[in-house]
């Protein structure tokens, strides 16, 4: 009885806190602060405790997987652990969204909460950080887009990939190795057969700081990760609408 009372009093705050923690994890992944995995692990650890306290064991378990993956990532630095961490964050996000939907109840009586989503415009997310690409793709998928992630090690294979995928929009992180996003943008924009593909540069810099780079690279748009994941999704929505 006490757990139910606790849930009814704290569930909304738990969901809000979860979203803040996930947003912070996203910003951590996008940034260049030292010890990203260590900070992610700490964020997820606090989240595990909160989920346990309110009786959300599935969320606690998923967050624990994320915490452990972040700790392994810190130790090994291996791409496998980075991917495992991104997947766990995605799982946590989905569970929190499901919880939020069930807490809110169906919008209209009789309407099922889970409705199949229409597959929206295809978006290619290009980032040398698997974690970052995964988080952006996940948020886009939740918003109804059909995202795909990739890494670009060289210009020609990358252009060939874009030709195959034919996305409505390519999101390019600027600070990528070995080929920077603005270089790939310029190449994409000068390919006549890809003129219908919108290209946006994505960065932890502000849009003002990106302005010169964007202009030189002939990008259709600039998207700052610093504004948060919802703002990134909104800019993608605007750009794909404009491009449609």
């Amino acid at each position, binding site marked *: 009885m*006490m*757990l139910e*009372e*606790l849930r009814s*009093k*704290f569930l909304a*705050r*738990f969901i809000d*806190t979860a979203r803040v923690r996930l947003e912070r994890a996203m910003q951590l992944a996008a940034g260049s602060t030292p010890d990203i995995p260590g900070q992610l692990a*700490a964020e997820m*650890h*606090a989240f*595990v*405790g*909160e989920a*346990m*306290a*309110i*009786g959300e064991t599935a969320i*606690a378990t998923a967050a*624990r997987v994320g915490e452990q993956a972040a700790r392994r990532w810190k130790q090994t630095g291996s791409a496998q652990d980075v991917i495992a961490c991104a997947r766990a964050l995605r799982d946590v996000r989905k569970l929190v969204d499901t919880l939020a939907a069930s807490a809110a109840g169906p919008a209209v009586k009789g309407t099922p909460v889970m409705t199949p989503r229409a597959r929206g415009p295809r978006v290619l997310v290009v980032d040398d950080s698997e974690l970052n690409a995964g988080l952006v793709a996940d948020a886009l998928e939740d918003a109804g887009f059909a995202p795909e992630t990739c890494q670009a090690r060289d210009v020609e294979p990358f252009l060939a990939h874009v030709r195959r995928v034919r996305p409505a929009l390519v999101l390019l992180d600027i600070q990528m190795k070995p080929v920077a996003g603005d270089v790939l943008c310029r190449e994409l924009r000068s390919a006549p057969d890809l003129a219908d593909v919108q290209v946006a540069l994505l960065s932890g810099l502000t849009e003002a700081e990106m302005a010169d780079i964007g202009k030189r690279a002939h990008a259709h748009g600039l998207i700052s990760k610093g504004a948060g994941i919802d703002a990134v999704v909104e800019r993608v929505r605007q750009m794909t609408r404009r491009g449609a």
Partner: protein
Amino acid sequence: MSKHVLIVDDSQLMLDMARHALEGAGYRVSCARDLGELERGRAGEIDLILMDVQMPEAYGDDVAGVLRGVHGVRVPIYLLSALPAADLGERARGAEVDGFIPKQGGMPALVERVRTILGAP
């Protein structure tokens, strides 16, 4: 006057939930989010300290060790954490605290343990 529990945790949500649960069971509760608040919080009469293990400033088991060894705190100190029970048990033994309470059981289990440790409020 009812028995007084001091909870140390860096998550405000966790503190608020624990306060709600323990106050609902009749205990008095003080909360501390960091070492500064802990220093102020332990000035009053405390019957039990519940200490989170992984906090940004320090590990709770280290803090507990200092409270015991340096400040001579005699009231029961329990580690309260989302760590797996085996890890938590090891840390509790290392820190020479009175025991540990895993967060896994949620708030009902926490209240039950506090009742076992302190008796009725």
